[in-house]
Protein backbone atom coordinates (compact mmCIF):
# COMPACT_ATOMS: atom_id res chain seq x y z
CA UNK A 1 0.00 0.00 0.00
CA UNK A 2 1.33 3.41 -0.96
CA UNK A 3 2.38 5.31 2.12
CA UNK A 4 5.25 7.53 1.08
CA UNK A 5 5.45 10.64 -1.06
CA UNK A 6 8.83 11.18 -2.72
CA UNK A 7 9.98 14.25 -4.60
CA UNK A 8 12.82 13.71 -7.06
CA UNK A 9 14.74 16.96 -7.20
CA UNK A 10 17.27 17.32 -10.02
CA UNK A 11 19.81 20.08 -9.48
CA UNK A 12 22.84 21.67 -11.05
CA UNK A 13 24.93 19.49 -8.73
CA UNK A 14 23.31 16.16 -8.08
CA UNK A 15 20.02 14.50 -7.23
CA UNK A 16 18.08 14.87 -3.98
CA UNK A 17 15.14 12.77 -2.79
CA UNK A 18 12.66 14.49 -0.46
CA UNK A 19 10.51 12.05 1.48
CA UNK A 20 7.28 12.52 3.40
CA UNK A 21 4.16 10.61 4.35
CA UNK A 22 0.89 10.80 2.46
CA UNK A 23 -0.02 13.73 4.75
CA UNK A 24 3.05 15.62 3.43
CA UNK A 25 3.59 17.73 6.55
CA UNK A 26 7.36 17.26 7.02
CA UNK A 27 9.99 16.47 4.45
CA UNK A 28 13.27 14.63 4.93
CA UNK A 29 16.06 15.49 2.51
CA UNK A 30 18.20 12.60 1.26
CA UNK A 31 21.24 13.00 -0.96
CA UNK A 32 23.01 14.30 -2.85
CA UNK A 33 23.15 11.34 -5.19
CA UNK A 34 24.90 11.41 -8.56
CA UNK A 35 27.50 13.76 -7.04
CA UNK A 36 29.21 15.90 -9.63
CA UNK A 37 26.55 15.26 -12.26
CA UNK A 38 24.05 17.84 -13.41
CA UNK A 39 20.63 16.25 -13.08
CA UNK A 40 18.19 17.71 -15.57
CA UNK A 41 15.31 15.45 -14.71
CA UNK A 42 14.49 12.54 -12.43
CA UNK A 43 11.31 10.61 -11.87
CA UNK A 44 10.00 7.46 -10.22
CA UNK A 45 8.12 5.09 -12.49
CA UNK A 46 5.36 3.55 -10.35
CA UNK A 47 3.76 1.29 -12.98
CA UNK A 48 5.40 -1.77 -11.39
CA UNK A 49 8.09 -2.05 -8.69
CA UNK A 50 8.98 1.64 -8.26
CA UNK A 51 12.13 2.52 -10.17
CA UNK A 52 14.13 5.72 -10.27
CA UNK A 53 15.12 7.21 -13.65
CA UNK A 54 17.60 10.06 -13.91
CA UNK A 55 18.70 12.21 -16.86
CA UNK A 56 22.18 13.47 -16.01
CA UNK A 57 25.19 15.00 -17.68
CA UNK A 58 28.71 16.08 -16.97
CA UNK A 59 30.78 18.63 -18.90
CA UNK A 60 33.57 16.16 -19.59
CA UNK A 61 31.75 12.85 -19.65
CA UNK A 62 28.52 13.61 -21.59
CA UNK A 63 24.90 12.78 -20.82
CA UNK A 64 23.14 9.54 -20.08
CA UNK A 65 19.96 8.06 -18.67
CA UNK A 66 20.53 6.30 -15.34
CA UNK A 67 18.13 3.99 -13.54
CA UNK A 68 17.90 1.95 -10.36
CA UNK A 69 16.15 1.46 -7.04
CA UNK A 70 14.78 4.19 -4.81
CA UNK A 71 17.86 4.28 -2.55
CA UNK A 72 19.51 6.52 -5.16
CA UNK A 73 22.87 4.85 -4.54
CA UNK A 74 22.85 2.09 -7.17
CA UNK A 75 21.93 3.95 -10.34
CA UNK A 76 23.22 2.38 -13.53
CA UNK A 77 23.76 4.12 -16.86
CA UNK A 78 22.12 3.03 -20.08
CA UNK A 79 24.46 0.86 -22.12
CA UNK A 80 23.00 2.39 -25.26
CA UNK A 81 22.07 5.97 -24.31
CA UNK A 82 19.63 8.22 -26.13
CA UNK A 83 21.86 9.71 -28.84
CA UNK A 84 20.75 13.30 -29.34
CA UNK A 85 20.74 14.24 -33.04
CA UNK A 86 22.85 17.04 -34.53
CA UNK A 87 21.43 20.49 -35.13
CA UNK A 88 21.00 21.20 -38.82
CA UNK A 89 23.50 23.74 -40.25
CA UNK A 90 20.91 26.57 -40.29
CA UNK A 91 20.04 26.05 -36.62
CA UNK A 92 23.71 25.68 -35.66
CA UNK A 93 24.51 29.00 -37.30
CA UNK A 94 21.56 30.66 -35.53
CA UNK A 95 22.59 29.19 -32.17
CA UNK A 96 26.19 30.37 -32.59
CA UNK A 97 25.10 33.88 -33.63
CA UNK A 98 22.88 34.22 -30.55
CA UNK A 99 25.09 32.41 -28.06
CA UNK A 100 22.50 29.69 -27.45
CA UNK A 101 23.22 26.53 -25.53
CA UNK A 102 24.09 23.69 -27.92
CA UNK A 103 25.06 21.10 -25.31
CA UNK A 104 23.78 17.61 -26.04
CA UNK A 105 21.66 16.54 -23.11
CA UNK A 106 18.74 14.45 -22.00
CA UNK A 107 15.90 16.72 -20.95
CA UNK A 108 13.53 14.25 -19.40
CA UNK A 109 12.48 10.63 -19.04
CA UNK A 110 8.79 9.72 -18.91
CA UNK A 111 6.89 6.44 -18.48
CA UNK A 112 5.34 4.77 -21.52
CA UNK A 113 1.74 3.51 -21.64
CA UNK A 114 0.25 1.82 -18.57
CA UNK A 115 0.00 -1.49 -20.44
CA UNK A 116 3.68 -1.49 -21.53
CA UNK A 117 5.45 -1.38 -18.21
CA UNK A 118 8.98 -1.73 -19.61
CA UNK A 119 8.57 1.11 -22.09
CA UNK A 120 10.02 4.54 -21.37
CA UNK A 121 10.46 7.67 -23.46
CA UNK A 122 13.26 10.23 -23.29
CA UNK A 123 13.55 13.69 -24.82
CA UNK A 124 16.86 15.24 -25.79
CA UNK A 125 18.55 18.43 -26.94
CA UNK A 126 19.02 18.88 -29.83
CA UNK A 127 15.43 17.77 -30.08
CA UNK A 128 14.89 14.04 -30.31
CA UNK A 129 12.51 11.43 -28.94
CA UNK A 130 13.85 8.06 -27.81
CA UNK A 131 12.10 4.87 -26.73
CA UNK A 132 13.35 2.16 -24.42
CA UNK A 133 11.67 -1.23 -24.23
CA UNK A 134 13.88 -2.60 -21.46
CA UNK A 135 13.32 -0.11 -18.62
CA UNK A 136 16.10 2.21 -19.74
CA UNK A 137 19.02 -0.10 -20.54
CA UNK A 138 18.97 0.78 -24.23
CA UNK A 139 17.29 3.52 -26.25
CA UNK A 140 16.23 3.78 -29.88
CA UNK A 141 15.35 6.92 -31.82
CA UNK A 142 11.74 7.48 -32.86
CA UNK A 143 12.25 8.50 -36.51
CA UNK A 144 8.65 9.62 -37.10
CA UNK A 145 9.25 12.72 -35.01
CA UNK A 146 13.05 13.00 -35.14
CA UNK A 147 12.97 13.17 -38.95
CA UNK A 148 9.72 15.12 -39.18
CA UNK A 149 9.22 17.14 -42.37
CA UNK A 150 9.03 20.36 -40.31
CA UNK A 151 12.38 19.80 -38.60
CA UNK A 152 14.08 22.34 -40.86
CA UNK A 153 11.90 25.00 -39.19
CA UNK A 154 12.64 23.96 -35.59
CA UNK A 155 14.58 26.78 -34.00
CA UNK A 156 16.85 26.53 -30.98
CA UNK A 157 15.75 28.61 -27.99
CA UNK A 158 17.71 30.11 -25.11
CA UNK A 159 17.79 26.70 -23.42
CA UNK A 160 18.79 24.94 -26.62
CA UNK A 161 16.60 23.09 -29.08
CA UNK A 162 14.92 20.70 -26.70
CA UNK A 163 12.22 18.07 -26.66
CA UNK A 164 11.07 18.83 -23.13
CA UNK A 165 7.56 17.39 -22.81
CA UNK A 166 6.38 13.81 -23.41
CA UNK A 167 2.88 12.72 -22.44
CA UNK A 168 1.26 9.40 -23.20
CA UNK A 169 -2.51 9.80 -23.36
CA UNK A 170 -3.91 7.88 -20.35
CA UNK A 171 -7.04 7.02 -22.39
CA UNK A 172 -5.27 5.76 -25.52
CA UNK A 173 -1.79 4.16 -25.38
CA UNK A 174 -1.32 4.80 -29.11
CA UNK A 175 -1.68 8.57 -28.63
CA UNK A 176 1.44 10.40 -27.49
CA UNK A 177 2.17 14.10 -27.28
CA UNK A 178 5.57 15.80 -27.37
CA UNK A 179 6.56 19.47 -27.23
CA UNK A 180 9.71 21.05 -28.62
CA UNK A 181 11.27 24.48 -28.10
CA UNK A 182 11.04 26.35 -30.31
CA UNK A 183 8.90 24.39 -32.71
CA UNK A 184 5.66 23.50 -30.98
CA UNK A 185 3.55 20.53 -29.96
CA UNK A 186 3.04 17.30 -31.88
CA UNK A 187 0.70 14.34 -31.53
CA UNK A 188 0.80 10.79 -32.79
CA UNK A 189 -2.31 8.61 -32.89
CA UNK A 190 -0.55 5.45 -34.05
CA UNK A 191 2.04 4.82 -31.36
CA UNK A 192 4.74 7.05 -32.85
CA UNK A 193 4.85 6.35 -36.59
CA UNK A 194 3.21 9.54 -37.86
CA UNK A 195 3.20 12.87 -36.02
CA UNK A 196 0.95 15.86 -36.57
CA UNK A 197 1.84 19.41 -35.48
CA UNK A 198 -0.92 20.64 -33.15
CA UNK A 199 -0.23 24.36 -33.01
CA UNK A 200 -3.31 25.85 -34.68
CA UNK A 201 -4.35 29.08 -32.95
CA UNK A 202 -1.19 29.18 -30.83
CA UNK A 203 0.76 32.45 -31.23
CA UNK A 204 4.04 32.16 -33.11
CA UNK A 205 7.25 33.60 -31.75
CA UNK A 206 8.60 36.79 -33.31
CA UNK A 207 10.41 35.94 -36.53
CA UNK A 208 8.91 32.47 -36.98
CA UNK A 209 8.29 31.41 -40.58
CA UNK A 210 4.67 32.32 -41.42
CA UNK A 211 3.93 29.39 -43.69
CA UNK A 212 4.97 26.64 -41.30
CA UNK A 213 2.74 24.59 -39.00
CA UNK A 214 5.37 24.92 -36.27
CA UNK A 215 7.12 28.15 -35.20
CA UNK A 216 5.60 28.29 -31.73
CA UNK A 217 7.55 28.32 -28.48
CA UNK A 218 5.85 25.92 -26.11
CA UNK A 219 7.63 25.84 -22.75
CA UNK A 220 5.72 22.96 -21.14
CA UNK A 221 2.85 20.73 -22.27
CA UNK A 222 0.78 18.53 -19.97
CA UNK A 223 -2.15 16.21 -20.62
CA UNK A 224 -4.80 16.02 -17.95
CA UNK A 225 -4.72 12.51 -16.45
CA UNK A 226 -8.48 12.02 -16.13
CA UNK A 227 -10.31 14.39 -18.53
CA UNK A 228 -10.12 12.98 -22.07
CA UNK A 229 -8.71 15.36 -24.67
CA UNK A 230 -7.76 18.11 -22.21
CA UNK A 231 -4.29 19.63 -22.51
CA UNK A 232 -2.63 22.70 -21.07
CA UNK A 233 0.49 24.46 -22.24
CA UNK A 234 2.62 27.24 -20.81
CA UNK A 235 4.00 28.96 -23.86
CA UNK A 236 6.58 31.72 -24.30
CA UNK A 237 3.53 33.73 -25.33
CA UNK A 238 0.58 32.79 -23.15
CA UNK A 239 -1.10 29.95 -21.30
CA UNK A 240 -3.36 27.75 -23.41
CA UNK A 241 -5.96 25.02 -22.92
CA UNK A 242 -7.22 22.50 -25.43
CA UNK A 243 -10.32 20.30 -25.09
CA UNK A 244 -9.83 18.37 -28.32
CA UNK A 245 -6.44 16.64 -28.06
CA UNK A 246 -4.63 19.77 -29.23
CA UNK A 247 -6.51 20.27 -32.50
CA UNK A 248 -7.45 23.74 -31.25
CA UNK A 249 -6.29 25.91 -28.36
CA UNK A 250 -7.85 28.66 -26.28
CA UNK A 251 -5.69 31.27 -24.67
CA UNK A 252 -6.56 31.49 -20.96
CA UNK A 253 -3.91 33.82 -19.50
CA UNK A 254 -6.10 36.96 -19.20
CA UNK A 255 -5.61 38.25 -15.69
CA UNK A 256 -2.11 36.91 -15.14
CA UNK A 257 0.57 39.52 -14.40
CA UNK A 258 2.69 38.03 -17.20
CA UNK A 259 1.85 35.51 -19.88
CA UNK A 260 5.44 34.24 -19.80
CA UNK A 261 6.54 31.35 -17.62
CA UNK A 262 8.04 27.89 -17.72
CA UNK A 263 6.51 25.56 -15.13
CA UNK A 264 3.06 24.01 -15.34
CA UNK A 265 1.28 21.58 -13.01
CA UNK A 266 -2.15 19.94 -13.17
CA UNK A 267 -4.57 18.65 -10.55
CA UNK A 268 -5.74 15.09 -11.34
CA UNK A 269 -8.91 15.68 -9.30
CA UNK A 270 -9.88 18.95 -10.99
CA UNK A 271 -9.55 19.18 -14.78
CA UNK A 272 -10.63 22.83 -14.79
CA UNK A 273 -7.41 24.15 -13.28
CA UNK A 274 -3.73 24.37 -13.99
CA UNK A 275 -0.98 25.93 -11.93
CA UNK A 276 1.56 28.39 -13.38
CA UNK A 277 4.24 30.75 -12.11
CA UNK A 278 4.37 33.88 -14.28
CA UNK A 279 7.87 35.26 -14.73
CA UNK A 280 9.03 38.68 -15.82
CA UNK A 281 10.47 38.26 -19.30
CA UNK A 282 11.89 41.79 -19.62
CA UNK A 283 15.62 41.87 -20.19
CA UNK A 284 15.59 38.06 -20.16
CA UNK A 285 15.33 38.22 -16.36
CA UNK A 286 12.84 35.33 -16.10
CA UNK A 287 12.26 35.98 -12.42
CA UNK A 288 9.29 35.82 -10.10
CA UNK A 289 6.87 38.68 -10.57
CA UNK A 290 8.11 41.84 -8.81
CA UNK A 291 10.02 39.82 -6.24
CA UNK A 292 6.83 38.13 -5.00
CA UNK A 293 6.95 34.40 -5.58
CA UNK A 294 3.38 33.43 -6.47
CA UNK A 295 1.56 30.51 -8.00
CA UNK A 296 -1.61 31.15 -10.00
CA UNK A 297 -4.57 28.94 -10.83
CA UNK A 298 -7.73 29.80 -12.78
CA UNK A 299 -10.90 30.64 -10.84
CA UNK A 300 -12.89 28.77 -13.48
CA UNK A 301 -15.39 29.89 -16.12
CA UNK A 302 -13.01 32.58 -17.36
CA UNK A 303 -13.22 34.56 -14.10
CA UNK A 304 -9.54 35.31 -13.92
CA UNK A 305 -6.85 33.75 -11.76
CA UNK A 306 -6.31 33.27 -8.05
CA UNK A 307 -2.90 34.32 -6.73
CA UNK A 308 -1.64 31.71 -4.25
CA UNK A 309 0.90 33.18 -1.84
CA UNK A 310 0.40 31.73 1.65
CA UNK A 311 3.79 30.52 2.82
CA UNK A 312 5.65 31.84 -0.22
CA UNK A 313 8.12 34.76 0.04
CA UNK A 314 6.46 37.97 -1.11
CA UNK A 315 9.42 40.32 -0.86
CA UNK A 316 12.77 40.27 -2.63
CA UNK A 317 12.25 36.81 -4.05
CA UNK A 318 13.88 37.24 -7.45
CA UNK A 319 14.17 33.57 -8.26
CA UNK A 320 13.24 31.67 -11.38
CA UNK A 321 11.33 28.41 -11.80
CA UNK A 322 12.31 26.27 -14.77
CA UNK A 323 9.96 24.18 -16.91
CA UNK A 324 10.86 20.80 -15.40
CA UNK A 325 10.80 22.21 -11.87
CA UNK A 326 7.03 22.18 -11.25
CA UNK A 327 4.74 19.20 -10.83
CA UNK A 328 1.91 17.64 -8.84
CA UNK A 329 1.16 14.34 -7.14
CA UNK A 330 -1.72 11.87 -7.44
CA UNK A 331 -3.11 12.31 -3.91
CA UNK A 332 -6.29 13.97 -2.76
CA UNK A 333 -6.07 16.82 -1.92
CA UNK A 334 -3.50 17.19 -4.65
CA UNK A 335 0.06 18.20 -3.80
CA UNK A 336 1.72 20.88 -5.92
CA UNK A 337 5.51 21.33 -5.94
CA UNK A 338 8.13 23.57 -7.47
CA UNK A 339 11.84 24.28 -7.15
CA UNK A 340 13.73 27.51 -7.72
CA UNK A 341 17.03 28.66 -9.10
CA UNK A 342 17.90 29.61 -5.52
CA UNK A 343 17.72 26.03 -4.32
CA UNK A 344 14.36 26.08 -2.54
CA UNK A 345 11.72 23.40 -3.02
CA UNK A 346 8.20 24.53 -2.09
CA UNK A 347 5.43 22.04 -1.38
CA UNK A 348 1.69 22.44 -1.00
CA UNK A 349 -0.43 19.59 0.34
CA UNK A 350 -3.73 21.47 -0.16
CA UNK A 351 -3.88 22.18 -3.88
CA UNK A 352 -1.84 25.36 -3.64
CA UNK A 353 -3.73 27.11 -0.85
CA UNK A 354 -0.70 27.06 1.47
CA UNK A 355 2.98 26.33 0.99
CA UNK A 356 6.04 25.31 2.96
CA UNK A 357 9.70 25.02 2.09
CA UNK A 358 10.37 21.29 1.82
CA UNK A 359 14.07 22.04 1.26
CA UNK A 360 16.29 25.12 1.12
CA UNK A 361 19.84 25.90 0.09
CA UNK A 362 20.05 23.10 -2.46
CA UNK A 363 21.97 23.71 -5.67
CA UNK A 364 19.95 25.44 -8.37
CA UNK A 365 16.85 23.27 -8.99
CA UNK A 366 16.34 21.98 -12.53
CA UNK A 367 13.49 19.52 -11.99
CA UNK A 368 10.89 18.40 -9.46
CA UNK A 369 8.66 15.36 -9.87
CA UNK A 370 6.44 13.63 -7.32
CA UNK A 371 5.61 9.97 -6.77
CA UNK A 372 3.43 8.16 -4.25
CA UNK A 373 4.95 4.77 -3.45
Amino acid sequence: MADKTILCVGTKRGLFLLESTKQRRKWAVKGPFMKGWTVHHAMIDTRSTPRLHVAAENFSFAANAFSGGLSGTQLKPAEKPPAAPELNPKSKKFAKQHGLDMTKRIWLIEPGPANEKKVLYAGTAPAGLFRSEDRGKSWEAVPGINQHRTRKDWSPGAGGQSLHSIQVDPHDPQRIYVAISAAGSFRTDDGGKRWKPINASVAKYVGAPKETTVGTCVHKLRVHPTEPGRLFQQNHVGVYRSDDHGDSWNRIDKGLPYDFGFGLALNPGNPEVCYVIPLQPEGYAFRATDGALSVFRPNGNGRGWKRLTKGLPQKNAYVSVLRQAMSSDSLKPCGIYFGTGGGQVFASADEGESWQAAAEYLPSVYSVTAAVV
Partner: protein
Amino acid sequence: MTAGSPPIVTLELPTLLRTVAGWRRVTLGGRTIGEALEAAFEKAPALRHHLTEDSGELRPHILCMLNDAVVPRTGLRSTPLESGDEILIHQAISGG
Protein backbone atom coordinates in the same frame (compact mmCIF):
# COMPACT_ATOMS: atom_id res chain seq x y z
CA MET B 1 52.51 -14.62 -17.85
CA THR B 2 51.92 -17.11 -20.64
CA ALA B 3 53.35 -16.50 -24.10
CA GLY B 4 51.16 -14.18 -26.13
CA SER B 5 49.03 -12.97 -23.27
CA PRO B 6 48.87 -9.18 -22.92
CA PRO B 7 50.54 -7.25 -20.09
CA ILE B 8 48.46 -6.82 -16.97
CA VAL B 9 47.89 -3.14 -16.21
CA THR B 10 45.74 -1.03 -13.92
CA LEU B 11 43.14 1.47 -15.06
CA GLU B 12 41.85 4.09 -12.65
CA LEU B 13 38.80 6.27 -13.28
CA PRO B 14 37.85 9.58 -11.68
CA THR B 15 35.27 9.38 -8.89
CA LEU B 16 32.53 10.70 -11.18
CA LEU B 17 32.78 7.65 -13.40
CA ARG B 18 32.36 5.20 -10.53
CA THR B 19 28.64 5.83 -11.05
CA VAL B 20 29.03 4.69 -14.64
CA ALA B 21 31.38 1.72 -14.23
CA GLY B 22 30.49 0.50 -10.76
CA TRP B 23 34.20 0.47 -9.90
CA ARG B 24 37.00 2.98 -9.76
CA ARG B 25 40.11 0.87 -10.24
CA VAL B 26 40.43 -2.29 -12.28
CA THR B 27 43.14 -4.66 -13.42
CA LEU B 28 43.01 -5.77 -17.02
CA GLY B 29 45.09 -6.93 -19.96
CA GLY B 30 46.21 -4.80 -22.91
CA ARG B 31 49.20 -4.43 -25.20
CA THR B 32 48.26 -0.81 -25.87
CA ILE B 33 46.13 1.85 -24.20
CA GLY B 34 43.54 1.22 -26.92
CA GLU B 35 43.37 -2.46 -26.00
CA ALA B 36 43.18 -1.64 -22.29
CA LEU B 37 40.31 0.77 -22.94
CA GLU B 38 38.47 -1.86 -24.99
CA ALA B 39 38.92 -4.35 -22.12
CA ALA B 40 37.45 -1.77 -19.75
CA PHE B 41 34.51 -1.20 -22.10
CA GLU B 42 33.81 -4.94 -22.03
CA LYS B 43 33.56 -4.78 -18.24
CA ALA B 44 31.42 -1.62 -18.29
CA PRO B 45 29.85 -1.00 -21.74
CA ALA B 46 28.50 2.46 -20.86
CA LEU B 47 32.08 3.70 -20.33
CA ARG B 48 32.60 3.82 -24.09
CA HIS B 49 29.94 6.52 -24.43
CA HIS B 50 31.26 8.55 -21.51
CA LEU B 51 34.96 8.39 -22.46
CA THR B 52 34.99 8.44 -26.26
CA GLU B 53 33.37 10.20 -29.18
CA ASP B 54 31.81 8.38 -32.12
CA SER B 55 35.22 8.44 -33.84
CA GLY B 56 36.70 6.40 -30.99
CA GLU B 57 38.91 9.27 -29.83
CA LEU B 58 38.82 10.40 -26.20
CA ARG B 59 36.30 13.16 -25.52
CA PRO B 60 37.93 16.60 -25.61
CA HIS B 61 37.92 17.40 -21.89
CA ILE B 62 39.50 14.16 -20.74
CA LEU B 63 43.15 13.61 -19.95
CA CYS B 64 44.89 10.24 -20.00
CA MET B 65 48.05 9.63 -17.97
CA LEU B 66 50.39 6.65 -18.05
CA ASN B 67 52.55 6.20 -14.96
CA ASP B 68 52.17 9.89 -14.06
CA ALA B 69 53.03 11.20 -17.54
CA VAL B 70 50.45 12.81 -19.80
CA VAL B 71 49.80 10.73 -22.91
CA PRO B 72 49.49 12.88 -26.06
CA ARG B 73 46.08 12.55 -27.71
CA THR B 74 47.66 11.79 -31.07
CA GLY B 75 48.51 8.10 -31.12
CA LEU B 76 47.03 7.57 -27.66
CA ARG B 77 45.34 4.30 -28.53
CA SER B 78 48.54 2.75 -29.94
CA THR B 79 50.70 3.70 -26.95
CA PRO B 80 52.37 0.41 -25.85
CA LEU B 81 51.91 -0.95 -22.33
CA GLU B 82 54.08 -3.05 -20.04
CA SER B 83 53.05 -5.19 -17.09
CA GLY B 84 52.41 -3.09 -14.02
CA ASP B 85 51.65 0.11 -15.93
CA GLU B 86 49.06 2.42 -14.42
CA ILE B 87 46.62 4.29 -16.63
CA LEU B 88 44.78 7.19 -15.04
CA ILE B 89 41.81 8.94 -16.60
CA HIS B 90 41.29 12.52 -15.44
CA GLN B 91 38.53 15.04 -15.95
CA ALA B 92 40.05 18.21 -17.38
CA ILE B 93 39.04 21.02 -15.02
CA SER B 94 40.25 24.54 -15.56
CA GLY B 95 39.26 28.08 -14.76
CA GLY B 96 38.88 29.84 -11.48
